[in-house]
């Protein structure tokens, strides 16, 4: 199965989880996702997701000017984002348990 498709389905949740640790700018979020093991994640997908979550009111955003180069755009999770993270996290955990039970029944090695 193509992991890229799976990642797309849970990218909102992954991004919210990363930002729940600390604020971050676009590429910083990408790097943290990859470090966590989601190596298939595409840069543009993450940037687009950040914008969508921001437009949905789950993230706040602020610009940090640079002395030398272009400014960085940071994102941080807000109360609405944390609610979304808790809700989607619960859904994902239940879904993962269900899948795990199903695969255990089929005796598929995890």
């Amino acid at each position, binding site marked *: 199965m193509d992991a890229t498709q799976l990642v797309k389905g849970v990218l909102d949740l992954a991004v919210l989880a990363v930002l729940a640790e600390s604020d971050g*700018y676009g590429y910083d979020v*990408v790097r943290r996702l990859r470090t966590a093991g989601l190596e298939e994640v595409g*840069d*543009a*997908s993450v940037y687009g997701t950040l*914008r969508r979550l921001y437009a949905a009111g789950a993230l706040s955003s602020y610009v940090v000017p640079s002395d030398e*180069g272009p400014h960085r755009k940071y994102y941080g999770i807000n109360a609405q984002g944390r609610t979304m993270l808790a809700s989607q996290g619960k859904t994902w955990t239940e879904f993962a348990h269900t899948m795990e039970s199903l695969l255990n029944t089929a005796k598929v090695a995890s």
Partner: protein
Amino acid sequence: MNQIATPTSAVRAYVASVRAELLDLAPEDVDDLIGGLEADLTERAAELPEGTDLTSAFGAPAAYAAELRSAADLPPRAPVTPGQQSFLAAERARLHDAEVSWRARGDALQARHTWLAELRPVWWVARGMILAIVPTLVLRVPLFGVGFWLFALTGAALSFWWSRRRPAAATWSNRLAILASVVAAVLAFPVALTFMARVGWTDGNGAVSAEPQYYPGPVMGSDGVWVNGEMATNLYAYDANGNRLDRVRLYNQYGQAVAVPTEALIPWSQQGGTIATGPDGQPLKNPILMKPDGSLDVNRLVFPLRWGDLTGWQASSGGWEPPVKISELPAATAEPARPDASPSPSTSTSTGPQDQTSPSPSPSATS
């Protein structure tokens, strides 16, 4: 964390291409998607092996833009034909491409000549000073007067401060700085020429110039003699021994006679039946006589100029009274006297007016 490398021209070009793929979206959506992308891609590109092509690393800009749209839940780009694309969007894209290309050239130039970057503050200051000409002209403040220099100092400080902030690329602030630079560059040459003319930097070793086209004033484009940026209305000749030379005719290197233009004399003449006034505001005692046809009755080729019953050696219109004798030069072979050296009056009364026989270099006299 806040030190971000300056984006390379390749990154700027890539971001510009991605932006071009998003131009059908609302500007705020585009800014949401693109804002910060330059910094992100700069950091990302720095991790790639040197010389890596960004398109091979990130994919084609169109695909990158499509992925951004898809993840952001924005509609895919509709196929756009030139006829459907709004004029504004097309112009915006073209302007943006031009800006990217311009920046790329600037980056390449700076990469080759790194010292150019060190000169930038000098240009920021110069730009502000040059642009001071604009409020000076609009507010009709005397050129190169106190008001102008106040504008210049303020402009220099503002310009330096503005660019020192290093506004991010593709912002209105940055574009304003670029526009100011272009306008200043266009104005630099005429402003410099006018300034040099005003302070009398007319040539390397003398203050006399016969290039009236560089000097603004009422007699622009006329012949005549210019001293320290001002039209001479009379000339007084002395020989090396300091004695007056009367009724002198002067010629330049082309054999052209030196004359005081009519325009320079008109203020001192009768005009429309009115007696002209002198520098002290009083009516001239001996205004230039006019012929019945309206022309001036004065020989403009023989110096000092004289008319009516004047000798030509009376106090000049500039207020200077030509002395009978000025100090001698140290030796006949000495350097020519400095043009700005004030002749020192002498009590000697020798050497009155005398006729000079001209060498007559077949003058093509300008009258």
